[in-house]
């Protein structure tokens, strides 16, 4: 109840019509002309001082992308994106790759502070127990502006830096693993990303190391008409463990902005990766104007025996979300998990879900997907579970629940199941419930206010997934969910 109360107080204290992360930071930027040609790709690569192999790799992706067409199979609808009317690179002029916090533009530090993400290690250290520390990689438009706690992580042998830095400093690891999970031509947006990706995080946890703190990356889109093409690569070597969290916001703008990310996870024998996302991109206004188009390819490869990858996501933002974090269960005895809360309100459209591909023997997976739709929003869960001929003893449990608030929204569940071995056991449960005015009146008749009633019902609905998040983020996420649903009834 304490958390519910906190949520309510939080909701009351804010102006509900305002997306509170919608401010713009004034910084001088460096960006090329609008549009996408081979020259744009060369420009990005040159700006990052990339080695020749990287440029070649990008150009190859770009040539392939030009021959592809945008997918149309999802349930989301949007006007055609003019890829020539976007900026593909924007970097703050000062400190494109600063060595220390002192070199970061104070306006940018202030931005992160305003977002509730202090970057000064001393400030983070004050009053925080070592096990609760979080190292942050802050990505502002197209570049990583700073990564905290690098030294401390290095002592443990953990590499945590921007992908740009990794290309310079750890080219062997990058060349070995980049696109080894999401091939360059996997899909239209992944190919585009391969050509023009700007920044993102790189993590390598060596054999037998348990990463001593939570790692997180915070993405901020600031510039107008600028696409953000994030590329993240996380490798957990044999017996390693890492928990990683990603957060995102963007200013309120009238036009739509594009975020096309590729995230690859690789877990070797007995390794475990926990990847959590709290996504709060600007969703657009009540009429559906503006907001982020979030087209993301996230895939984990349980390459080693008994390895484990777990995706947890809380999605409240974006005008359009197109996202299917997946697991390839290649190693025998490996396990994939997907926990998701997708909240949509206003005119938001969400088409999300997961894929669990069972390739190895005795592989297991679990999917818990909770969709909450309010306003005039539309939410689709799309899940695919498949077992290869050799995946004997594969097991999956899927639970997919939808909660509709009001009667103008929609929720759809589309499961695909494919078992090529008779020994696979797949279970699927799905429910749809609705909160209408009658239920809210019933709660009010018992003394609960309308906000308390919504918070109570929603918190009960999402509890199982929130429990998967690190504590501090669970509290944040719960607030975020309640705030996103403000004004959704009555």
């Amino acid at each position, binding site marked *: *109840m304490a958390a519910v109360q906190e949520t309510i107080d939080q909701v009351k204290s804010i102006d509900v019509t305002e997306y509170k992360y919608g401010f713009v930071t004034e910084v001088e930027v460096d960006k090329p002309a609008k549009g996408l040609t081979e020259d744009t790709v060369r420009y990005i690569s040159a700006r990052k001082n990339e080695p020749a192999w990287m440029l070649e790799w990008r150009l190859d992706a770009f040539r392939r992308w030009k021959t592809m067409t945008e997918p149309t199979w999802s349930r989301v609808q949007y006007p055609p994106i003019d890829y020539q009317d976007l900026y593909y690179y924007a970097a703050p002029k000062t400190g494109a790759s600063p060595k220390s916090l002192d070199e970061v533009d104070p306006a940018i530090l202030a931005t992160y502070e305003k977002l509730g993400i202090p970057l000064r290690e001393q400030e983070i250290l004050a009053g925080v127990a070592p096990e609760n520390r979080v190292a942050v990689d802050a990505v502002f438009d197209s570049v990583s502006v700073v990564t905290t706690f690098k030294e401390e992580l290095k002592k443990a042998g953990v590499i945590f830096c921007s992908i740009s830095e990794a290309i310079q400093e750890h080219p062997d690891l990058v060349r070995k693993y980049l696109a080894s999970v999401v091939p360059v031509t996997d899909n239209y947006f992944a190919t585009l990303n391969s050509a023009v990706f700007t920044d993102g995080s790189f993590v390598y946890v060596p054999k037998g190391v348990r990463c001593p703190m939570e790692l997180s990356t915070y993405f901020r889109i600031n510039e107008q008409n600028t696409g953000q093409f994030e590329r993240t690569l996380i490798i957990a070597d044999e017996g390693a463990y890492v928990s990683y969290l990603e957060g995102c916001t963007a200013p309120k703008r009238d036009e739509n902005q594009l975020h096309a990310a590729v995230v690859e996870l690789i877990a070797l024998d007995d390794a475990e990766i926990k990847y959590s996302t709290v996504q709060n991109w600007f969703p657009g206004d009540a009429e559906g104007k503006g907001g982020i188009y979030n087209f993301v390819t996230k895939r984990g490869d349980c390459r080693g025996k008994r390895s484990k990858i777990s995706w947890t996501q809380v999605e409240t933002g974006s005008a359009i979300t197109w996202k299917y974090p997946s697991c390839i269960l290649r190693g025998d005895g490996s396990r994939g998990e997907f926990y998701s809360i997708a909240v949509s309100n206003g005119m938001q459209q969400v088409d999300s879900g997961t894929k669990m591909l069972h390739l190895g023997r005795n592989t297991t997976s679990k999917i818990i997907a909770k969709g909450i739709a309010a306003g005039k929003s539309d939410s689709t869960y799309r899940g695919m579970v498949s077992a290869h001929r050799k995946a004997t003893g594969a097991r999956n449990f899927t639970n997919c629940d939808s909660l509709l608030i009001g009667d103008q929204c929609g929720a759809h569940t589309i499961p695909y199941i494919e078992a090529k071995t008779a020994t696979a056991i797949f279970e699927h449960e799905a429910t749809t*419930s609705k909160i209408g005015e009658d239920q809210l009146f*019933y*709660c*009010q*008749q018992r003394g609960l206010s309308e906000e308390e009633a919504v918070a*109570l019902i929603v918190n009960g609905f999402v509890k199982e997934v929130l429990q998967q998040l690190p504590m501090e983020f669970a509290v944040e996420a719960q607030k975020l969910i309640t705030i996103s649903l403000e004004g959704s009834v009555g």
Partner: protein
Amino acid sequence: MLEIRNLTVKIADEDKQILNGLNLTVNDGEVAAIMGPNGSGKSTLSYVIAGKEDYEVLDGEILLNGENVLEMEADARAAAGIFLAFQYPLEIPGVATMTFLKAAMNAQRKARGEDELLTPDFIKQVNAAADKLGIAKDMLRRPLNVGFSGGEKKRMEILQMALLSPSMCILDETDSGLDIDALRIVAEGVNALRAKNRSFLVITHYQRLLDHIVPDTVHVMSKGRIVKTGGKELALELEKSGYAAYGEAA
């Protein structure tokens, strides 16, 4: 004390008037019954007292202990002591009955400026009240009313009434859907709550319930107003002659 004067109500977005200048007084400690044919406006009356928004009050007033409740939100009316046992209780998905009960009790306490309940006290109260109504413990862990039978839902309404200890209890067709044993348990639950400072408005279509909850007063409702008032013998009379004498078919 509940005083309703000249209450005139229509459906909010239709031109349909349902209550037509209804007058009714329920004194402290009184058990009043309202009987009337289906469609005469009994549920509407209970909803308007409790503050449901689908209705528009065109005229009249509702006073609870002298205070006009029409200006209050539904949750404020609940905190002021109004409780409605619904004819069709709603299902609250994902919220365990225990969690719901605690949230409701604490919300009302907070509205009245009282401290939150301590968990051990809360659990004791709930268990004692549930035992009396023959409600099994495992039901309290299930989401409120989800998949409950009609009879279980009605018992759950009385459990909430007992725990929230309201001063004005409205029971809308609590007898419908109950077999005779359940009816007896529910009636005993209600009788146990009868008190000097607590009033009841028992709405029913049939006399049967009033054999178990014996009213002080019986009102006959027809076409959105009270057309006759008498003692408990009026209920027996109605049972014999039906509602025809009041201009409606039984």
